[in-house]
């Protein structure tokens, strides 16, 4: 092989290597971070034609309405537990932190968290649905989605 060819071959190999590792890493990161959206009935009865149910430990988003009278607060901390419903079975959400401004019983909310039992979710983020779902797009654009009212928790401090 003449030096020029050799150089070209090396470049191509390097490119291919870079490309495949980039794609691999991206796919891996994607797989870890895709969150499916469920409603309470979908969570219990299964979603889609296959009636797929999420497995315990899976990260997911769930949207529904806060069942009036179901909100239980801990007297001494910010721990709160409530039930979500759409039209069928109910799901329990546990959350520790400050709820969004528009959180009310009977309101739609979206929670993001981990399924810890078949019908219990430990949320790390709770957002009031009104904020994002029914907002004029221009406002939504400007506020970049209130959904970002996102507490990122550190493990210290509690």
């Amino acid at each position, binding site marked *: 092989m003449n030096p020029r060819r050799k*150089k070209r071959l090396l470049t191509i190999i390097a490119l291919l290597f*870079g490309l495949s590792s*980039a794609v691999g*890493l*991206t796919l891996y*990161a*994607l797989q*870890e*971070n*895709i*969150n*499916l*959206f469920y409603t309470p009935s979908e969570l219990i009865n299964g*979603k*889609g034609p296959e009636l797929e149910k999420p497995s315990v430990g899976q*990260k997911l*988003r769930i949207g529904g309405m806060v069942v009036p009278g179901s909100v239980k*607060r801990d*007297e*001494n*901390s*910010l721990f709160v537990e409530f039930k979500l419903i759409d039209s069928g079975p109910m799901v329990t959400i546990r959350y*520790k*932190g*400050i*709820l969004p*401004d*528009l*959180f009310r019983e009977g309101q739609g909310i979206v929670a993001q968290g981990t399924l810890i039992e078949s019908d219990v979710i430990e949320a790390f983020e709770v957002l009031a649905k009104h904020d*994002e*779902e*029914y*907002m*004029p*797009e*221009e*406002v*939504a*654009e*400007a*506020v*970049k*989605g*209130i*959904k*970002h*009212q*996102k*507490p*990122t*928790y*550190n493990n*210290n*401090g*509690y």
Partner: protein
Amino acid sequence: MIPELGYFSLTLAMVLCVLLFIFPMWGAHTGNLRLMRAAPSLAVGQFIFVLLSFAALIYASLTDDFTVAYVAHHSSSTLPWYYKITSTWGGHEGAILLWLVMQAGWTAAVALMSKSLPWPLRARVLGVLGFLAVGFMLYTLLMSSPFDRLLPYYPVEGRDLNPLLQDPGMIIHPPLLYMGYVGLSVSFAFAIAALLTGQLDNLWAKWSRPWTMAAWGFLTLGITIGSWWAYAELGWGGWWFWDPVENASLMPWLVATALLHSLAVTEKRGIFKSWTVLLAIAAFSLSLLGTFIVRSGIIVSVHAFASDPDRGMFILAFLAIVVGGGLTLYALRAGHVSSEGRYSLFSREVALWLNNILLVVATLIVLLGTLLPMIHKELGLGSISIGEPFFNQMFTYLIVPFALLLGAAPLLRWKQNKLKQVAGKYGLGVIIALVLTAAWLFSSFAKVSAITFMATALALWIVVMSAQDLLQKTAQAQSIKRLGLSYWAMLLGHIGLALVIMSVALTSAYSTERDVRVVPGEQVALGGYDFRFDGVKVIRGPNYTGHAGVVTVFKDGEQETVLHAEKRRYDIGMQFMTEAAVDAGLSRDLYLALGEQLTGGAWSLRIYHKPFVRVMWLGGILIALAGFIVLFDRRYRRRNPKEAQA
């Protein structure tokens, strides 16, 4: 009457823009100098009319003219006057009008400051800009006029500006961002004109470069202020959320950053020509795509307010014509462009090429993360969301090679280098960066994670290498004064990025927060400070009422400051807003947000201690400044001999 004049004025501006497209384009095609010469005056004329039109909207807003639908929807009589002005770009129609003002302004600026360009190129650049303006004006006039009236039934009071937009950050954020987006249309116009003319040489790169720099500077500033605003106003202490809207501004920025590095190579070495042109097309295309995404409600789908497919169709069609046309032209012409110039693997050319590759990969990742939920859904696979960790993870991977390269590249010369010449400097840089990082982090923080250490070391590596480079260049140029402004700009930009990396690393690792339930008199400790909750008082603003939680902050028993974290309820619309209280400082921010009222007189309170978060925005401002400094470099002002001497 005034709003109608505004509409009429915009119509006139559009007529001028149609001429601005046809005359110079035709003139350049046929070699008719008189037609080409008409372009600059047309460009200035349309700017004046667009400005008048914008003034009409501001007038309607200031005078509380609620017969104008836009004013009724986005303003109210109780709104302070400065927010009445900013409300003119708080909604869709007004924002597009502001976009037009920017577009017209850039076009006029190009017309006035391109006297040194040969006529065919100058005419075509203005013609392309005229074409773009026609598209946006048509859209405004036909689909989203801010001057529509609500007659005969109009409200006595407006619906008020969204409380989130009633913030100083919001006064400047959109105009800056739009300056950036629209400014990239100038780079685009230069690219298209060059493809049409067939003149893709280093002169072209040199002419296009200051415009790209200016647009990029505005974009940087806009993004920085947007991040600061989200931090201050959303009440959750976050500064970047990987939201589609933010991604829409980040993508053009990444490509524009690649573009200005690539332009440097094309200007200095006459290579990467077709790649540079492609980047110029891509940067503006992504600005348009971002607008489409945001405006059509296609991705921020949950935000779709009475989502109007006609509007979306128009923007998509415009996007297809502009981008599709640009890329077709590229496909036809760029194949014939040959780049000459030899360089070895170990050269500045290759370093800049790698920089471009990394930036483009970063753009693709953001694009993928933004569009995948939509594509997933269109393929019938259900709705998904892509979590922030995806972006964070990918950007962490990318920043490592990027920062290493950034530190190393400035020391490389064009064409060819001998490892021997630079190895010593690199070794020294690595050692100094590692030692400094270790000394600093281990002395200041109890726990240092590998990733924090690495990121800080990378940031210091950039700083150390920049310093070494400065010393070397000073020695070569014999005087620090003889280094060009471009060089200082580069240094500043790179150090700005180092600050951002450092700030992100430290604030992510060492921010602490507590969500607490407090009763008046109770004290909470966080990050070496004590926070005493003194209770809540009722507040009353011009257009809201609410509660303010009063918190006295102590450090080592001494009173540091008193903070008022507000929870407001705006009178119109009954919207709640958390107005966080921030005690700002370079080395740390104390950030307080008032939560809900609990039983027994208690309130929930969120307290953050965020070290070095402010350094991030400082870095952003330095980067933007770099873009503006270049504009004053002698090289770009040579046509004016007086200034060159000054």
